[in-house]
């Protein structure tokens, strides 16, 4: 059993009838995920994916009919804020939003409302989560990871696959892999997921994958040094990137530092985290 979701998690897919919705729902069904329903306003009553999945007009109707406790969102950019709010009011406990390009002011409002309702969100603009051998909710390819005792958290997409594949290569598996997404305002953050791994009896070690920008990795470093007993291995992408584009004075005043790779690596090292030079080095740094 992984953190956040396992083989009993019942998923509805908002936007199931779209190209991506269909493609990934099919992969999820193949993997064994309980995709119990889809949502597409105006198409309620249809069945998709060879008649395996019923489509509903709203998340509420879908949840009432299927007992779903999780919603995955793959609707277009302009419909995504409404879709998240709808999911939050429907009774699911976990929302995983894959949609990218959601305006930040929309996300601030959505996140405030979700906090108010006590609903957990992963994403937006994220690959979702994978509990190897049990369930995958999102787009992480299922065959690149095997069950194991390593917790993986990342705000990058394909870089995460790289790491999972590298782990599998040497026979290492994961309890859960959570792709939290790289948007400035999102649902679960590193710290939230690190805490879950710390509390999870099946997780022995944690891999945290970060990148330049913002200060989430620095905050995670502080959390690790203060609250974590399990070993953490990390890689930060963007060491070779030129100084990022600036957001005027206010951005610098608010963010403080520049969010450079060097700063993040220094903070994590200070917190006792083992740092990899490149992703394929990570397996060597894990305690075997």
């Amino acid at each position, binding site marked *: 059993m992984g953190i956040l979701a396992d083989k009993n998690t019942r998923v509805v897919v908002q936007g199931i009838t779209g190209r991506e919705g269909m493609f990934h729902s099919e992969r999820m069904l193949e993997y064994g995920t309980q995709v119990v329903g889809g949502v597409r306003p105006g198409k309620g009553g249809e069945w998709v994916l060879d008649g395996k999945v019923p489509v509903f007009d709203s998340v509420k109707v879908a949840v009432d009919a299927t007992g779903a406790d999780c919603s995955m969102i793959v609707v277009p950019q302009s419909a995504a804020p409404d879709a998240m709010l709808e999911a939050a009011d429907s009774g699911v406990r976990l929302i995983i939003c894959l949609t990218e390009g959601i305006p930040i002011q929309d996300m601030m409002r959505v996140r405030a409302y979700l906090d108010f309702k006590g609903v957990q969100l992963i994403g937006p603009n994220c690959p979702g989560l994978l509990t190897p051998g049990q369930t995958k909710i999102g787009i992480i390819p299922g065959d690149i990871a095997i069950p194991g005792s390593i917790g993986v958290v990342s705000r990058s997409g*394909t*870089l995460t696959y*790289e790491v999972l594949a590298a782990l599998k290569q040497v026979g290492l598996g994961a309890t859960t892999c959570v792709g939290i997404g790289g948007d400035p305002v999102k649902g679960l953050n590193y710290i939230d997921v690190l805490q879950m791994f710390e509390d999870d009896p099946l997780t022995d070690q944690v891999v945290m994958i970060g*990148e330049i920008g913002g200060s989430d990795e620095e*905050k995670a470093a502080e959390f690790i040094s203060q609250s974590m007993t399990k070993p953490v291995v990390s890689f930060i*992408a963007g060491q*070779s990137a030129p100084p990022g584009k600036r*957001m005027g004075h206010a951005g610098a005043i608010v963010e403080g530092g520049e969010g450079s790779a060097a700063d993040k690596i220094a903070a994590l090292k200070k917190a006792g985290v083992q740092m990899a030079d490149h992703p394929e080095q990570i397996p060597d740094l894990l305690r075997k």
Partner: protein
Amino acid sequence: MKLHEYISKDIFAKYGVPVPKGEIAATPEEAGKIAKKLGGRVVVKAQVLVGGRGKAGGVKLAADPQEAVEAAKAILGMDIKGLTVSKVLIAPAVEIATEIYLGITNDRTARQPVIIASAAGGVDIEEVAKTNPEKIIRVHVNPLLGVQDYNIRDLAIGIELDRRLWDSFHTITKGLWEAYHNSDATLAEINPLVIDDKGQLLGIDGKMVIDDSALYRHPDFEELRDLSAEEPAEIEARQSDLTYIKLDGEIGCMVNGAGLAMATMDIIKLFGGEPANFLDIGGGANAEKVAAALRIILSDPNVKAVLFNIFGGITRGDEVAKGILEAMDTLKPTVPMVIRLVGTNAAEGRALLAEANMITAETLAEAAQKAVEAAKGSK
């Protein structure tokens, strides 16, 4: 997307922020006419999307229309941090008694908009933030409520603003909030907001940055985009929905996902090479997009080798392979190409590419090493 000073101030003015009434000129003659119309002393300001124009000589005072013509002549065409000045703003010169900073941005940690004010405004505000952080007042705004009157009072109290100016400060801050909120800005800033010699508040310089993700609902801003401030290749990339940033190295990179793209650049450097670019083809890229990406990479004459690193998820290996083959047919590249293809439909993609003359790799490290070697060999 950054907006020019004159556009930002037009937006602020629309929401009730008092700004000096200036006009924009593209030639010295126009500048002279505007100065004549305005009368009195004017300031001629380069309109470039980069900071530090004052120190670079892009802002000049002119006592009369003739001086305005001269100033415009000096500034137009000037290069400021790599950008050429094609427009100047001519505005009445203002006698400044005090400079205040007032800006709104998104605090991603607090997940709330934050309004920032300081009585120590002006060009050195970032320095103030470092050396005298207590002079920087921050007030967060609940995103479900929007700005409230007490938020604005907290700012006025914090910067110890003369109480006679509270009403005017209220109007300005409320206007700036509306500009920020209604325009989906990530930054709306007045710096300096001055108290002039008549004791009135006036917004002298303005800056707005619009959330690129929100441009779909602001088509009017898209039309205002100043393409002169961008690399042609970057513009082409955006039109193909790619993210491309030109760098100074010799190994072109095409990767799906920003994090993996950066990691690929990092490992190229680790093995002694230099990346020529950052290029993220995004998720679910199709053949057409891949072809556009390759064209952009090869348009950089510094490129001595190209590294493809594709880890299929949404993106399918066979689609990428098709795009590469198409682009190679048209472009007939002469530089060596190293490809690593894993994940969704990678086998199908590899099969398609088998006939093409490409160097293949299994791991990221191997791919990087081969690309670095190939680039050295083709010099």
